[in-house]
C-alpha cells in the first residue's frame, strides 16, 4: 500500500532538493561575496561581521518562524510564501557559514603571497582572485560540501511552516496509513542514500588535497 504513496514521497524529496539547491546557490553567492569582503578588510567589514554574527547565531528554525510569522506582523508587504521563506532562511544562514569558511580559507594562504602580489602592482581583488582563491578553494571544498550537506539535512525544518518537503509529505502519508515507523524509515533511508555519496566525495577531496600538498611540499 505504501507504494501508492511513493510518488508523493518522491515529490516531497524533489521539493527538499529544490529548496536545498536554491539555498546552496544563494548561500554560496552571498557567502563568497561576504567572505571576500571580510578578508579584504573593506570599509564594509564591520557590517559584514555583524551580518555573519547574526546569522551564525540564530538557529535556522527560529529564523524560519521569525521570517514567516513575525515579518508579516511588521508589515503586510513582507508576507512571503512558505517555500520562499524556507529558501530565504536557509540562504541567509548558509551565507554566514560559507562566508566564515571562505574567510578562513583565504586567510590560510600565507600573507606574504598577497604582499608579493600587491608590491608588484596587482590589485587586491586580482590578488584574491588569481592567487589566494585558487589555492584556498582546495582547502575550503570539504568544509563547503559538509555545509551543503547540513543545509540539506536542515530543510525538513521547513515542515514547521507548511512547506511540502519530504518530512511534511511523510506526515500527511502517516495520517492516512498509520505507518509512522515505515514512512519515517523510508525518509531516513532517502536522506542516507543522498547524503552518503556527498560525505564520501568530501572525504576524497580532503584526502587528495592532503596528498597533493605533501607531493608539492607546500
Amino acid at each position: 500500500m505504501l507504494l501508492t504513496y511513493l510518488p508523493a514521497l518522491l515529490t516531497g524529496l524533489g521539493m527538499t532538493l529544490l529548496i536545498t539547491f536554491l539555498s546552496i546557490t544563494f548561500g554560496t553567492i552571498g557567502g563568497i561575496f561576504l567572505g571576500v569582503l571580510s578578508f579584504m578588510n573593506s570599509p564594509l567589514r564591520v557590517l559584514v561581521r555583524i551580518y555573519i554574527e547574526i546569522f551564525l547565531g540564530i538557529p535556522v528554525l527560529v529564523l524560519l518562524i521569525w521570517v514567516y510569522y513575525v515579518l508579516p506582523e511588521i508589515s503586510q508587504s513582507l508576507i512571503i510564501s512558505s517555500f520562499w521563506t524556507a529558501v530565504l532562511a536557509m540562504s541567509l544562514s548558509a551565507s554566514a557559514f560559507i562566508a566564515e569558511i571562505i574567510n578562513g580559507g583565504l586567510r590560510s594562504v600565507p600573507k606574504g603571497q598577497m604582499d608579493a602580489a600587491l608590491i608588484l602592482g596587482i590589485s587586491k581583488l586580482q590578488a584574491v582572485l588569481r592567487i589566494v582563491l585558487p589555492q584556498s578553494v582546495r582547502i575550503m571544498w570539504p568544509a563547503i560540501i559538509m555545509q551543503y550537506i547540513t543545509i540539506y539535512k536542515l530543510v525538513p525544518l521547513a515542515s514547521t511552516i507548511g512547506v511540502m518537503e519530504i518530512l511534511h509529505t511523510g506526515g500527511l502519508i502517516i495520517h492516512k496509513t498509520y505507518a509512522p515507523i515505515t514512512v519515517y524509515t523510508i525518509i531516513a533511508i532517502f536522506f542516507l542514500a543522498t547524503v552518503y555519496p556527498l560525505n564520501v566525495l568530501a572525504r576524497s577531496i580532503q584526502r587528495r588535497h592532503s596528498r597533493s600538498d605533501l607531493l608539492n611540499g607546500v
Partner: protein
Amino acid sequence: MNQKPLIRLESICKRFGTANVFDNFSHSIYAGKHQLITGPSGCGKTTLLKMMALLEPTNKGTIYYKGTDVTNKHGQPGIAQDITNLRIGYVSQDRDLWPHLTVQENILLALKVSGRDYSYNDTFFKIVGKLKLTDHLEKRPGDLSGGQQQRCAIARCLIHNPDIVFLDESFANLDEENIASAFEIIDAVVEQGATIVLVSHRTKLPTKLFSKIINLDTPKSTEGFCNA
C-alpha cells in the same frame, strides 16, 4: 645631498606591543646609492623594509615616495607606485612564490594582469637566463630547490623593471656560485638605474657595491646612522 630621495621615512615610530622597534626614526634612499642593512635577528630589518614598501603600517611618522606623502597608502603599494611613478621590487625572506602557478606564470603574472606586455621579450629571456631558470619555466615552485625558488622570486621582482629592489635575506639559500650569478643580474639592473636595499646576515657579500651599510644593532632614533 641635493638630490631628492626616492624614499624618505620621516620621524617613524613603530611598536610591537610594548617594544619600541623604531622611535622617531628617519631614513632616506637615494637613486643609485645602494644600501646594505645588517643587524641581529629581531632588530627590525624586515620591518624597516616592509614599512618602506608600504606593507607594514607605521605607528607614527610620514613616508614619502619621490617627495609625495604616501603614508596613507599603506596596504596599497601598487597605487602608491602608480601615483608617484616609483616602481618597487621586493623579495622576501620566505620567497612567497605562488605555488599553484609555474615559474613562468609566477614571473609574468603581474605584467599580465596589469595589461602590460608579458610576451617573451628580451628582458624575460635575459633575466631567466642569467638566473638559470630557463630549464625550469614549466615547473611549479614546489618542484624547485630552495636556491632555485629564491632565483625565481628575484626574477619575478626584476621583470617589472623596478627603481628600487628590496631584498630581504634573498641570498640566504643561494650557494656561492649562484650568488655570483644573482649579483650579475642585479648589476645589470643597477646599470639600468635601479637601487638595491639589501637586508642580510651574510658577511661574505661584496660590500663595495653598497654606498651605505646600516647596522640596526644600534639605537634607531637618529638619522643616517652607521654610515659606512
